[in-house]
């Protein structure tokens, strides 16, 4: 009898702690979503209202919503040029389409290159025996703590000499370098857990290290590759500092989305209602990438291979 009671009370405890966890989670979700929601609302408001009242007033006053901000961001911003002869004449600024292409040109190779290098490196560190393996690996992991800001100026000076400033190759290499320590570390952790006997079996079957890597390691590492790809994609896509430093030499024709957005809001930040719609537009691609790669997070990919 007492046993039954105990179990019941335990159950109730479990339930109430479940509710508490859910409540905390809900609170955090709301806390994180409110500002985003505010930005979303703002992006549909008329410029003057944005400056007059907070976004939460948007539903009570009857000023209504507009798509004008999105129009300006997508089609190019209206500048008014004052001239002596015929008053104000409107001029279109740069639109986002070019910036989108630039961002893609920067991001895709800046994701693929470090993944390739890091996967090879991780395989080497995990499964090849060579002198200095441990110290080298520790060195790479130690590089995780170096902030990229301190390397910007030295790299920029080297790029100057190599004439890599303002080129895509330059920024790909920069992002590759900044991303490699984390990528190597992540992939090493995954690849080193692949059972040794699978590799040995492949070697006996006649596979070289390269074949083993391509035919076994890469397909089996897909979840780790996908998670790093998402990391790196978001980081590179949202990066402004590195792009500003290494690409501004090329001028407006190589501006990425983040830099273009910065220019949109005006030199004194007076047009930040455009930033809100610009932010939402720039979110589309990373969100798509995230959702697309998510399906590669497969649990139990190794199932059936070995018996533990």
């Amino acid at each position, binding site marked *: 009898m007492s046993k039954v009671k105990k179990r019941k009370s335990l159950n109730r405890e479990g339930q109430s702690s479940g509710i508490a966890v859910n409540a905390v989670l809900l609170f955090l979700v709301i806390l994180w979503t409110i500002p985003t929601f505010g930005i979303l609302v703002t992006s549909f408001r008329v410029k003057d209202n944005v400056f007059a009242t907070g976004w939460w007033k948007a539903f009570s006053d009857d000023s209504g919503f507009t798509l004008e901000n999105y129009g300006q961001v997508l089609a190019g911003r209206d500048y008014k040029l004052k001239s002596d002869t015929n008053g104000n004449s409107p001029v279109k600024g740069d639109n986002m389409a070019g910036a989108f292409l630039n961002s893609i040109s920067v991001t895709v190779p800046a994701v693929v290159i470090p993944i390739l290098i890091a996967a090879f490196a991780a395989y080497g560190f995990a499964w090849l025996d060579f002198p200095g393996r441990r110290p080298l690996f520790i060195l790479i992991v130690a590089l995780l703590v170096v902030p990229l800001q301190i390397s910007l100026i030295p790299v920029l000076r080297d790029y100057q000499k190599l004439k890599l400033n303002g080129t895509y190759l330059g920024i790909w290499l920069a992002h590759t370098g900044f991303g490699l320590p984390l990528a190597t570390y992540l992939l090493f952790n995954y690849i080193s857990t692949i*059972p040794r*006997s*699978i590799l*040995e*079996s*492949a*070697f*006996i*079957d*006649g*596979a*070289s290290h390269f*074949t083993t890597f391509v*035919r*076994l390691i890469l*397909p*089996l590492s897909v979840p780790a590759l996908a998670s790093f790809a998402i990391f790196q994609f978001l980081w590179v896509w949202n990066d402004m500092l590195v792009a500003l430093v290494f690409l501004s030499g090329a001028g407006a024709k190589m501006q990425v989305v983040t830099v273009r957005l910065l220019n949109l809001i005006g030199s004194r930040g007076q047009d930040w209602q455009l930033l809100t719609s610009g932010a939402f537009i720039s979110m589309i691609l990373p969100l798509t990438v995230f959702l697309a790669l998510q399906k590669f997070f497969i649990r*139990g*990919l*190794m*199932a*059936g*291979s*070995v*018996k*533990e």
Partner: protein
Amino acid sequence: MATVELKGIGKVYDGGVRAVDNANITVNDKEFVVLVGPSGCGKSTTLRMIAGLEDITEGELYIDNKMVNDVPPKDRDIAMVFQNYALYPHMTVYDNMAFGLKIRKFSKEEIAKRVNEAAKILDIEELLDRKPKALSGGQRQRVAVGRAIVRQPKVFLFDEPLSNLDAKLRVQMRAEISSLHNRLKATMIYVTHDQVEAMTMADKIVVLKDGLIQQIGSPLELYNQPVNKFVAGFIGSPPMNFLQAAVTEEGGKIMIDEGSFKMAVPDADYLKPYVGKNVIFGIRPEDLTYQATEEAGKTMNANVTVIEPLGAEIHLYLYTGKHQFIARVAPDIAVEVDQKAYFTVDFSKAVFFDTETELAIKK
């Protein structure tokens, strides 16, 4: 097919730990050799050195009379079946088996022919499209064996392939691997810690302990003429009984005196040097014959402590007052726990061991 020869093979790991010492083994063509021993005895290390997965520290390894110490695994023309199957989880059964052939650039038709043939032998034809995770343990091990068969290698290596299977499946797969050996007529080297597998499958057994080969011989040689106490105790189930006893000479007869009984040993000239000393008296449970009454000087007497009726026979656990031992008796013998029981001994089957060296005393 092929021969394998180990000449003074030794393995010392980086930390200075010695895993295998001076192993000399000759595996003849088409022979089924089993390396057996308790865990940590160096049997798997030896196999992995033959496979080329471990460097050989000392000695020379010959496959088909060619020294292969520095030949990588893929060029040794061997195939290996692992304890944990080691299947490629993202490939179908067909692709698992075809993998080695594809790498070796066999034609598509040849690959299909060999894979289908192997699948037929192993009765896994209907599984070819499945992935390993959709297979049971026994099926997985069959695929692993199939992957070895399709290569048609010079030598098959098995590293405890059955130890992950349940008992019933193990017995079945044991028979299948034996019949596979008969059918393929291939050289096979098989590692196990299970002496039953060794006894039932091997043409030749190599018993290892602490990295040292204890004895090499056919199953019956090892069973009937063990060279030392370890081999005697390791081979056979239930294991051989060991009783320490003093050797005495009374009226020209050699006697052994266990303390609670004395027995005359017939034709025991080989024990003469041990008169006045202790020896270890080794006798297998089936070489004891139950007697209802005591006969001084001819029977062992002991108390029954446990009775294990197995249907076809009974295992009696007995205690002499100094030693425990086991006897296998006929199922119709009526005994009870705590009762006295008496046994005559088939001394032609008994083995005596030196107490210090634990080596068998030669008859």
